[in-house]
């Protein structure tokens, strides 16, 4: 019971290869999701040990990226895929780069968490940061789900979500600047907080990229660097044709 788009090869072996490639991407995605969850947890609960643990686990993410990369190269060389299969390989190669970057950002947040844990905790326990993080985590989760389900419409929702994350990031950085001006002794701490927020905002962008690859993969349309209204129109039109 392979998915419909890729399930029609004469070679059963090829089907399996593509399926397991998709699974590998999901495994990597799961690892990255956990890294991000733990990094946020480390900040909120001021757990420096957890933060450092996240930082040291980034090696695993890098390793799996290399593995998937090699597998993609092997499939390209031996199977010479065309059409949807080729798009899958291209999308995978791009998506894992973004996932790896997310891993790097999570690592950065982990290190920042370890440093922030040694300083005074604010009364709100970084509430705004947590809200932003939950949002970004949802985006990443939905993007990976859309990748698994090959669902362009869900992917489109993630792309739209990115705007809200950007706004939240702006709000946090403005807040940080205000707090730093009020009391210059906190500059060091709030620099770290705004770095963490910046990392989260970048993760949101990467999740958006992954969703765009999903749209490309399912409908063969490149929707990068396009206005969101135009993207929605394209997705809807393509959906009509496909149905």
């Amino acid at each position: 019971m392979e998915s419909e788009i890729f399930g029609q090869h004469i070679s059963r072996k090829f089907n399996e290869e593509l399926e397991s490639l998709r699974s590998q991407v999901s495994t990597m995605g799961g690892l990255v999701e956990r890294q991000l969850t733990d990094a946020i947890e480390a900040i909120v609960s001021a757990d420096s040990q957890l933060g450092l643990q996240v930082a040291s686990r980034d090696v695993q993410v890098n390793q799996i990226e290399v593995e998937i990369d090699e597998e993609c190269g092997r499939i390209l060389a031996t199977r010479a895929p065309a059409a949807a299969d080729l798009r899958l390989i291209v999308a995978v190669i791009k998506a894992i780069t973004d996932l790896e970057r997310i891993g790097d950002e999570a690592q950065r947040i982990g290190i920042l968490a370890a440093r922030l844990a040694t300083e005074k905790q604010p009364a709100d326990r970084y509430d705004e940061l947590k809200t932003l993080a939950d949002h970004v985590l949802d985006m990443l989760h939905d993007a990976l789900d859309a990748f698994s389900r090959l669902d362009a419409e869900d992917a489109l929702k993630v792309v739209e979500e990115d705007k809200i994350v950007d706004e939240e990031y702006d709000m946090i950085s403005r807040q940080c600047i205000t707090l730093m001006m009020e009391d210059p002794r906190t500059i060091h701490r709030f620099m770290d907080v705004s770095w963490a927020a910046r990392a989260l905002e970048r993760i949101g962008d990467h999740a958006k990229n992954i969703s765009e690859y999903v749209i490309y993969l399912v409908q063969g349309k490149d929707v990068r660097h396009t206005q969101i209204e135009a993207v929605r129109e394209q997705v809807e039109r393509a959906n009509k044709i496909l149905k």
Partner: protein
Amino acid sequence: MPRFWQQALLRVALLAAAGGAIGGLYGEVWLGLFAAMLVGLVYQLVWLARLDSWLNGEDLAFLPEGEGVWARVFSRIDYLRQRARRRGKRFKALVKQLRQATRSFPDGVVILNDSREIVVFNQAAGAMLGFKNQDRGLRIENLVRNPDFVKYLRAKEQSQAVEIQSPLQPDAWLLCHIVPYGLSQKMLLVRDVTQQHKIEHMRRDFVANASHELRTPLTVITGYLEAIADDPQLSAELRAPVDEMQKQSQRMRQLVDELLRLSELEAEPGAVGGTRVDMRAVIETARQEARALPDCPATVESVYDSEQGLRGVRKDIQSIVSNLVSNAARYTPPTGKIVIRWWTTEAGAFLSVRDTGRGIASEHIPRLCERFYRVENGRERIGGEGGTGLGLAIVRHALLRHGGSLNIESTLGVGSTFTCQFPASRIVAVD
């Protein structure tokens, strides 16, 4: 031969005879016979055509009456068809019932095939794991990406359940258990354990906080008691109560300390790394501690069959050994004997504490490690001061953290043996 076949044969014979006779009148017997057979054949073909159009027609309820053998064939087919329909209905109703049953199941159920693709899932599973109807046929690890779950899923055998954070809400917890199902399929059972998680968390926090809060007033009380006891002007009649108060406050302090230690052990589950621990030093410390107890048995022996050390947290290992030895000392009469033995094999490292106490009845053994569990009859206290009732609970938790297990053997009236087993990977050479 059944009657209707006889009739059918008779008819053919009559038709042939009639054809032959009419043909004979014109001097062409064979031609007449041939014409008669042709008529018979056409007649049969007409019925066959009717049967065909009935079977392929839309109105199956309208049953041609048939004639002769054909009547029988028609009614038989109709009977078979109706029976199949009745069975189909029953089967459908059964499937519907089963579906409804699994749907209203409070736990999530997902059936996976041998390549871990989702075959079916019930409503609860869909809600807990965020599956949509279109997800049938997708590999489950593409949707439930938690690394712990994926590792569990890919393991050769799934003996224990695994607890994961819900993919939908990070603060919800799910207990997943995979059981073999059918020939090569697997069934994944999912249960929401968020509530248990919360309660467990609250309980742990409560114990830790309560112990902390108890400590402060206790320090004040022991401080003043000490000052009073040191006062030479203390009247003789108050001396005994003050001594007793000191003793009891000491005991209470120990209890609070052990509660704290236990909650610490519980708060950091999972295996620990640790450093090299010299078992000889640990065991000798425990021996000295036991000797200091009142009513300690005359002989406390230690036997070393191995010179290897153990990789672990020194504080934990010490509390394991000390608790076991002091327990043994407490429940063994002064004339008895305690033997501490340390040995290593390929299966792992072992530490046993054997005593010649009164033994424990077998029905108490499974519950022995529960906190504050007391054996009422079988294991009366011999020494004046009992333990806190937390010793074995601490032992068990400390062992769990080191991947070890505790085995208790006991015979009433003869004695007990407590054996700790540590995994072989924790054995390290003493330098």
